[in-house]
Each structure stands twice: as structure tokens, then as C-alpha cells.
């Protein structure tokens, strides 16, 4: 038996592949390389100095502080939502699925603006909270909320198709073998999704650290205080401080490369345990 493939000239194939490679090089690789070239234009000394700048360090610290809370929270939520959706039947499941997807279709600016609307000085709860001395907009809390909203779907979306495909057979088998709830989750459900969870957390983290639009709306752009790394890059760039801007940007680009590398390894090593085929 031989698979039937349409006859096609070799030349045309190479032309198309070549065009694709060229296009990707121009649109993805070139900008990425240019980030590192610009960052090191004035040598390693200037690069290190730009990163050691107190405002830059503050931006890095803030970004890390946001991610360290936003990612675990969304991982916990994603896990719970995926578990409920994949393993149980209940009313409103479709609505919950749409809600989880909402941040994907929402412009990040809106994801920031809604918090201003709710907690801003003229927002619904802003004046009330102000009386108690609680401020959310232009603070760490606001940035955290905006980041959580934007990165809301990443873990859940990674887990839901996989857990739906796996079904509940193994859990039911565990019940008949006498396992209690804790054993079922700890020994059956979680190990089955471990790598997909890592994968989702990775994507979630990359977005949490790199988010610009939503964070920009709620941050207030106070240097050394409420500027995250992406916001700090913009601020430096607007100051015509290109070396420093690209130096900080290179850290984000580096994060992207590491994420990509780990993602590729996971996909290669655990292809069958990830649900990327079913992901939109």
C-alpha cells in the first residue's frame, strides 16, 4: 500500500518553505536579535549598569512580586475549574467555559479599565475604600488584579481539554478499589495532569510578567514604585535611553526564550500528556 499524494513540483515546495522562513526571520527573529544587539550596543558594562539601576531593579522586583501571586492563584483556580468542568455535570457549565475564555477575547486595556471602574477614585467602591485608607488603583494590588484577569484562562484552558479527554474512568476505578477522595486526587487525578499543569503555569507566567496593556491602565507609572518591567521599558524608551530600554527588554526576551525552550522540551517529551492539539 502506498499513500496517495498529489504530484507536486519540488521547486514550488522549496519556494513556499523559503518564503515562510524568510517571513518568519523578518518578523520574529530579526526583532528578537535586534533587542539583544541594541542592549549591548555600548558594551556589557552599560548593560549591567542599566539593569543595576534602582528603578530597573524595582521594576524587576515588582514584576516578580506580581507573578509570584498571580500565577499560583490562577493555577489554583484553573485546576479547580478544569476539575469541575471535566469531571462533573452541572448547569451553567457552558457559561463557566465562556467566562473562562472571556479574557482571551477582551482587549487588555479593558481588563485594566474595569478595575479602574470598580476601584478607581470615581469608581463604584473607590470612595468607600478610600475612607478606610485602602487604595487599589495605582498600587501593587491594582496591578495584581489586572494581571490575574488577563492571565485567568491560561492554566484552565490547558487542563480542560486534557481532563475531558481523560474522562472519569480512572477515578471510578479508584473508587471501586477503595480509594478515598484524597487518594483519588493525589494519586490519580493530579499525576495524570502534572505536565499539562506545568505547561499551563509556564504560559501563564510568561504572560503575567510580560503583560503591558492592562497593567498600564492601573499602574499610574510611578517609577521605582508601580512600573513593572514592560512599563519600565516603555518609560526608558520614551526618555531616549535606548540602551537601558533594550537591556530591560532583553530580560523579558530572555524569559520568552526560556519559556519557549521548556515548552518545546515538554511538548517533545510528554506530547501525549499535553492537550495542545485541542487548544485554540
Amino acid at each position, binding site marked *: 500500500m502506498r499513500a496517495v499524494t498529489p504530484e507536486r513540483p519540488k521547486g514550488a515546495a522549496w519556494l513556499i518553505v523559503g518564503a515562510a522562513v524568510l517571513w518568519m526571520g523578518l518578523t520574529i527573529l530579526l526583532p528578537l536579535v535586534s533587542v539583544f544587539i541594541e542592549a549591548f550596543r555600548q558594551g556589557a558594562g552599560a548593560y549591567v549598569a542599566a539593569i543595576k539601576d534602582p528603578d530597573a531593579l524595582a521594576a524587576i522586583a515588582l514584576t516578580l512580586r506580581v507573578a509570584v501571586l498571580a500565577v499560583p492563584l490562577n493555577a489554583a483556580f484553573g485546576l479547580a475549574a478544569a476539575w469541575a468542568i471535566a469531571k462533573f455535570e452541572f448547569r451553567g457549565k457552558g457559561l463557566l467555559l465562556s467566562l473562562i475564555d472571556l479574557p482571551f477575547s477582551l482587549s487588555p486595556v479593558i481588563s485594566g479599565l474595569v478595575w479602574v471602574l470598580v476601584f478607581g477614585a470615581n469608581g463604584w467602591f473607590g470612595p468607600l475604600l478610600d475612607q478606610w485608607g485602602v487604595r487599589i488603583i495605582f498600587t501593587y494590588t491594582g496591578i495584581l488584579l489586572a494581571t490575574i484577569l488577563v492571565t485567568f484562562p491560561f492554566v484552565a484552558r490547558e487542563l480542560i481539554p486534557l481532563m475531558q479527554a481523560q474522562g472519569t474512568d480512572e477515578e471510578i*476505578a*479508584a*473508587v*471501586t478499589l477503595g480509594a478515598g477522595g484524597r487518594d483519588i486526587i493525589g494519586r*490519580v487525578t493530579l499525576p*495524570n495532569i502534572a505536565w499539562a499543569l506545568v505547561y499551563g503555569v509556564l504560559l501563564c507566567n510568561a504572560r503575567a510578567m510580560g503583560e503591558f496593556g492592562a497593567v498600564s491602565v492601573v499602574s499610574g507609572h510611578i517609577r521605582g514604585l508601580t512600573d513593572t518591567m514592560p512599563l519600565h521599558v516603555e518609560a526608558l524608551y520614551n526618555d531616549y535611553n535606548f540602551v537601558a530600554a533594550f537591556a530591560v527588554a532583553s530580560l523579558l526576551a530572555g524569559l520568552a526564550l526560556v519559556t519557549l525552550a521548556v515548552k518545546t522540551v515538554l511538548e517533545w517529551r510528554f506530547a501525549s500528556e499535553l492537550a495542545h492539539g485541542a487548544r485554540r
Partner: protein
Amino acid sequence: MSIDVEPGEFLALLGPSGSGKTTLLRVIAGLERPDSGAVSLDGEDFLAQTPRQRRVGMVFQSYALFRHMTVAKNIAFGPTVRPQGERPSKAEVQAKVQRLLELIQLADLGGRYPRQLSGGQQQRVALARALAIEPRVLLLDEPFGALDAKVRKELRYWLRRIHDETGVTTIFVTHDQEEAMDLADRVAVLKQGRIEQVGAPEALHEHPASAFVFDFLGESNRLPCHLAGDLATFDGFAAPAVAAPGAAAQTTAWFRPHETELAFDGPGVQAVVEGVLNQGGLVRVEARAADGAGFTVDLPRVLTPAGLGVGVPVRLRPRRVFVFAE
């Protein structure tokens, strides 16, 4: 419905899909709660117990092995999740796993993962995993449904052997009548949530309780007849009848393809051959009467008359018929 299972018995629940056989299993296992009714084992009220307390082993059509665990870990799962105090020691578990691996003839494959095994091997592991909890009842839900015909047959005899060795009371769900008849001590035929008949395979074949049971247990031919005592009379011929009490005088006679005689002349239903299928030692003849009724006749190859072919007019006569109360 009500059914008693004897200790150590191998009972098959046989029925078409939607007859409630799987639901019955899930109720016994504690995966589903009935609206009413009772399930008890050795006098204990089963419905008041959690699945964990019931200790019922279950084997699924989909195997449902734990995909991230090795074969040995799969088998060890039940004993390991026992509540503290009842839990056997590591060495005991290991010894038990080894014993079960030998029982299922996969002694060398304990370190493999389920995906590295064939379907038949996976189902054997699933059985060992269920046996590891020393179940008081073993439930099998269409365990061979996902396997090809040859493996199915092999596993069938193997399962019966395991049952005879372990002596565990077994309830087996299937829609394959041949499988049920081959394996079980007794077969319960289910229809729409009711038990039509329970009995040993021979009893079901020789004394089917209803037309449904007769039809479900094999292929059947039908012919209107007049019943008088043990004799069914047709248009110009007659046949001995196994008549159920309460059968009407004008009724339908049911008979098997292998209890049907075929001739070119003499008394019988006039039909025209539509197909001749060679099935090894048997020849299957499909024929149709003028009124559109279809008949199937199974003839031993050596007894097939010469000149039999598509389009040939034949006469069909049942050797023995069954008649049921409506």
C-alpha cells in the same frame, strides 16, 4: 427485578444495550444509588455501605488502568489505599502483586506502563488489579468489548479458568450471547430493566421463556402455525412443538436455522434462495417466501444438496419449533 447469586457462582447478565445490565452492576459496585430496592451480601445491607466498605472488584470495558503507573503499581493500588491499620505491609503487597502477575501470566511485565501493553494484556492487568483487593464479588462490565474476536475468545476461557482457581463470585455483563453461554454457570437475560429469564445455558436453549429470549440467543425463523398439544400444524405439514403454557391456538412458531430442513420438493414453505454463504463446515442459505418473509437455514456442508444456488426454488420445513405465550 430480583436475582440471587450463589457464592462462587459465575453469573452472566445478557441483554441488548439499554436493558439496564450495566446500571445493575454500577448499583452493586456502589457507583449509582437506586431510587428503591435492596442489595445485600451475606445478609449485609450493601446500599448502606460506601464502595470502599463493599470491597467489590470491578473491571471496565475501557480497562481504566492508571496510565501514569506501572503495571505493578496499578495492581498494588487497592491494597495501598486501604485505611491505616488494615493496610498490608510493603513486602506483603509486593508478594501479592507478584502472585497476581503470575496468575495473569505477565510476570515479567510489572515494570511496563499500560500504554506499552496490548488491549488483551491491559484487560488482564485490570482483572489482577480488581482481584488484589480480595473482592467479595467481582464485577465485569463488557470486559472484552474493545478486543478483537480472536483475543476475546482466548480471554474468555482464561477468565473462566481464573474464576475456577480463585472461586470468587463473579457477575459478568455482556451483550454477546455466545460469550455469556460459553462462560457462565447461569445466564440472566435482561430486557428493558426486567429479567426475562435466568437459568443455566442449556436450560435457556432448551426451554426459552419468551420469544425475546429465543430471538436474543441466536438467529431465528418465524412461521404462523396452528397449535394443538405438542404439534404445530402448518400449511400441509406439521412439526413437534415445545409449547409454553398459555400459548394460543393460532400463534407464531419460532425455529432455529440449524433445525430447519431444506428440500427441492415435498411439503414445506415455498421459498426462493437469495444467497448461499460458505461458513467453514456449515453452509448458510438465505431464502425468501412469496409473502416476503425471510428464512435462514444452516446445513452441514456434507448434507448440502447439489444444484443449490441463488434463484432456486426450495421447500423449508422446521424439524422442531418453539411456541410462546403472547
